[in-house]
């Protein structure tokens, strides 16, 4: 680590902040002239406030999405390795909806079909989110009382969340090693045989789930703990006076009152788990196709096999699936209604 390198880093970030500041100032300046002096609208303030964020998003998310949409109608791949231009019409790369059709009809990478991947992904998501919520709920209920050491317990239990994921995943992967990993060593100490976590498809899937659950419970626990704190004790006192036991008050009071907090968390959790590329990528390391979920297959299609056209179509299919789910779920539970008021 030389002084040069340190200076370079600081220069780079200083440069960044300056560039961004100037860009935002320029943007705001333009908008000011346009909206305040030009149109004289009272919408000027809010629009100027949200402009940097949305301009940034437009450039960094909308443009790439449009690029991908464009590519999805072409056969861009290693054999046709150039920028397709508009829909690939000029370079003869246009293939219409072929890529989209092939997503559903051909094996995605080698042997696995889209439907199998979808099933694997849904299974993966449902199992994980259920375990996250159940585990988080259990721990939160345990912690939500006056007790000694509460702070220490809390601090230790959120460790999986705090540790950088890349590192946590590398560690877990080595713990699944047949001979030397903790998982099998513990099993053997308990009298069972070791399990081929990394080579057997079924056990590898379980291994991924175990790791992801370990990673995800702290977040749910924190959310639920927060939600529990907001439930007024009056409800519980009234229930006690009516003779309700703890299970009944849980079902009648706790769950319904947690819902406004829990539902957004579940939606987020589902979306993140569905799109989780880190856990399968680092635990599985592209080795078992049976342990792929949709997004890891997408990554491999794009980067390992360089089938850019196919990958773009595939990506949109995944996105639409998630979009439909989210819209459906949000509408049905009405959970985000409050946010729009």
């Amino acid at each position, binding site marked *: 680590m030389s002084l040069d390198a340190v200076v370079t880093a600081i220069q780079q970030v200083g*440069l960044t902040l300056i560039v961004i500041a100037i860009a935002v100032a320029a943007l705001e300046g333009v908008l000011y002239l346009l909206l305040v002096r030009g149109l004289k609208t009272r919408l000027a303030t809010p629009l100027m406030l949200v402009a940097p964020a949305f301009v*940034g998003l437009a450039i960094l998310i909308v443009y790439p999405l449009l690029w*991908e949409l464009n590519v999805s109608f072409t056969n861009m791949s290693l054999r046709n390795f150039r920028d397709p231009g508009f829909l690939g019409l000029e370079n003869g790369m246009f293939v219409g909806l072929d890529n989209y059709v092939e997503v559903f009809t051909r094996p995605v990478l080698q042997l696995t079909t889209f439907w199998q991947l979808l099933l694997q992904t849904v299974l993966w998501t449902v199992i994980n989110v259920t375990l996250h919520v159940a585990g988080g709920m259990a721990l939160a209920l345990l912690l939500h009382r006056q*007790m000694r050491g509460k702070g220490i317990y809390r601090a230790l239990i959120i460790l999986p969340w705090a540790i950088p994921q890349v590192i946590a995943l590398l*560690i877990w992967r080595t*713990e699944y090693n047949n001979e030397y990993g903790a998982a099998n060593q513990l099993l053997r100490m308990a009298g069972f045989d070791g399990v081929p976590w990394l080579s057997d498809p079924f056990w590898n899937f379980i291994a991924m789930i175990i790791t992801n659950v370990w990673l995800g419970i702290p977040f749910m626990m924190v959310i639920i703990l927060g939600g529990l704190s907001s439930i007024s004790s009056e409800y519980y006192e009234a229930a006690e006076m009516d003779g309700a036991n703890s299970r009944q008050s849980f079902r009648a009071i706790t769950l319904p009152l947690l819902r406004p907090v829990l539902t957004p968390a579940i939606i987020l959790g589902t979306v993140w788990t569905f799109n989780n590329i880190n856990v399968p990528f680092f635990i599985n390391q592209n080795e078992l196709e049976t342990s792929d979920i949709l997004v890891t297959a*997408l990554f491999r299609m794009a980067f390992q096999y360089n089938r850019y056209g196919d990958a773009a179509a595939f990506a949109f299919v995944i996105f639409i699936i998630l979009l439909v789910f989210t819209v459906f779920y949000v509408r049905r539970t009405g959970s*985000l209604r409050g946010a729009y008021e």
Partner: protein
Amino acid sequence: MSGPTSVPAPAVTAAARSARATHQPGGRRDSRPKRIVIHGILILACVIAAFPIIRVLSVALRPGNRLLDSEFKLIPEGATLNAFVHVLTETDLPLWLFNSLVITTGTAIVGLLVAATSAYAFSRFKFPGRGVGLTALLATQLIPAAMLLVPLYLLAVQFKLANSYVGMVIALSVTAVPFSIWILKGYYDTVPIELEEAARIDGCSQLEAFWRILLPLSTPALVVVFLFNFLAAWNDYFLARILLSKEELLTWPLGLQRFQAQFQAQWNDLAAASILISVPVVLLFLYSSKWLVSGVTAGGVKG
């Protein structure tokens, strides 16, 4: 579950908290056997949570070059700090950590500024496209990240922003912005607008009211958004890999790969580096944990 970042819940305002008594189930103390069971379960949970870190520590302390040892000892024989020393003095780990820190701080600052102002607009104003805007922000969370990598890189090269932190910071802060806006907006919603109106009557401009009244009251949420952005940038691997190719610009996830040469990994170096990388982040997390737990999630609870 693991998002690209972590998502803490902001705290509730002091005003809101005094308005309702917090609930302690079982106002009376639990019975002794029950307490023992509860503590037992919690201790088990802590062990499970901390176990991998302890294992990594023991690998880092192991002499020689072996990750895979048939013994199960926690503190290995001949434990030595050599790996730590080696990794700190003879590799570029300090540089990588510094680079990451620099990028991350930049990202957190930019992300926080952008989100704080945008969330204010969404919370305090009604304007056409508000609902659509909020929905669009939510929709961005659905996009699989792999989809964006190649076009982002092409964009970066076009604007000569590859191999520079400008591209990294912009990309990282923009990815964290949608969620930050949602969190902050929800929090602002719980702060009564009357406070700002009172200030304006007293002569403050709207933006002054924002700056002097709303922001200080929103400190817990701001802290949380800062933490959120910080972690997103600190842990990022894929963006860094695609945008940074120069040795002196590497962040720690890229640097860590250096310890995994094509077929031979240096396990105790890897382990020592992992510990060193994790410590500051864990400390940061623990320090801000009081804001994490003591509150209510944004936008969910009304009254």
